[in-house]
């Protein structure tokens, strides 16, 4: 069950956030659902931050792993030559 506090604060905030984004008609042939759209807008906002951090972390860690494997790659190439 959702508490009355949630009802008073959570939903109006969601609605304001949703209405704050400018919208235009871009309908699809399936109904995306109003509640689903609002949730998606919120999730996308939060997840984008997580996703960006994750992407940078992967880039950073692959940079280090490349550096450390550089010498082995070079020796492999030499062997091929």
């Amino acid at each position, binding site marked *: 069950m959702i508490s009355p506090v949630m009802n008073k604060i959570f939903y109006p905030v969601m609605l304001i956030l*949703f209405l704050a984004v400018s919208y235009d008609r871009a309908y699809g*042939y399936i109904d995306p659902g109003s509640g689903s*759209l609002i949730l998606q*807008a919120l999730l*996308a906002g939060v997840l984008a931050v997580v996703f960006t951090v994750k992407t940078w972390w992967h880039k950073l860690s692959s940079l280090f792993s490349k550096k450390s494997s550089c010498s082995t790659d070079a020796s492999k190439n030499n062997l091929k030559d």
Partner: protein
Amino acid sequence: MQKINPNPSSFRDPEGYVVSIAGSPARVITAAGKRSYDALMGSGLYDALAGRGLLVEHREMESIPDGMSQNQIYKVIVPKKLPFVSYPYEWCFSQLRDAAITTLEVQEMALKHGMTLKDASPFNVMFVGYKPLFIDTLSFEPYEEGAPWKPYRQFCETFLAPLFLMSKLDLRLGSALKHFLDGIPLDLCRKLLGKKAIMGLAPLTHIWVHSFMQKRYADTSSETGGYKKGISRKGIEALIDNLHGCINRLKPPRQKTPWREYYAHTSYSESSFLAKKEGVLKLAERIKPKMVWDIGGNTGEFSTLFSERKIYTVCFDGDIGCVEECYIGAKKRRDKSLLPLFLDITNPTPAVGWQNEERESILSRGPADLVLFLAVIHHIALGHNVPLSMIAKMLSQAAKNLAIEFVPKEDPQAQRLLINKGDIFPDYTEENFRREFSKAFRIEDRIPIEGSGRSLYLMSGA
């Protein structure tokens, strides 16, 4: 003039529909679908997806066939024919999960090419053996900066909800999709999951909060139908990545099902089992089937005899645990000729959807060149009280040829079925079996299975 029939499962999308031209499926693209189809082909997305084996390949027809209204049609494309049509409610957990992953991979690649999916239903995916394949060429549209991912709700209802129910509660709950063709309502999924709906961020956000949001904004009127500039591209990528992660983490429950251990407790000796395999192959040699149905195929022990010879085989079983195990095995072997599906033969998959025509019944997807009905007849006749004449009638609808094992009443497995019932089946004899089946089939051969008292019969359609 070729005979053109509309496909009863394709009528919702104004951008196109499927027809059957002289028995082969073709997809008609309407004038409304021109923009999306041209973008799919022009953006390089089609080549990228087809090249990776994610999207069904197609060719364009040179001209619109006679008998179609020429002015509303942009193009007609002919997709590569699939060996067998199956539906999500016939899949096991891992099949539905792999179909979901394929859908997300298609979406990820679409975004890279400036496109997006406009719907994301498991009906857009088919299996060719172990391999899921996206089949709806018209599910794509150009991505517009700021637009939401329209199928988010549909994805949660048709993929996430049944996967959570199967993974967290019971594998058998996948068959709920037979009733809820448009997906399991999230409020129902939340109620069924109970406390498990709030254990973990994924069910908490995509099911629990989602269902409350749906309820809260159910009456929101007018202009919430869509908006631009609302969600960044990075946000969509992050959402898809999150759904991908959720699904990858889901595992089938460690659930013991009645028939999974069947081969460990079978009444056969090893030599009888080998004799049965040899017998089946010997019978099949004569028929040279292109399509085999193995009804009650358990984990696919006999189906693989055919699939490893590249004969397309559908292995049906009424125990979802067996289907799961059969699929995992086929996937490990990368077997493109074996499709495991759930089927309760005493209540075969019906035709469902609009006018009961949208999704076909199992019997209307046949008949198969050869049906294997091995060690099943006693379960149906003695366990479910179905008279031999009715079993013969059903099989004559499903099979052009039949390899059937007769299990006498004296067999220990048959005796187990009679322990609590008593012998109320005086007509269950091999003689009666032969008489009843001779009405629907011609008996070609009989091979006794050494050391078991059972017999293998080969029959052809009368």
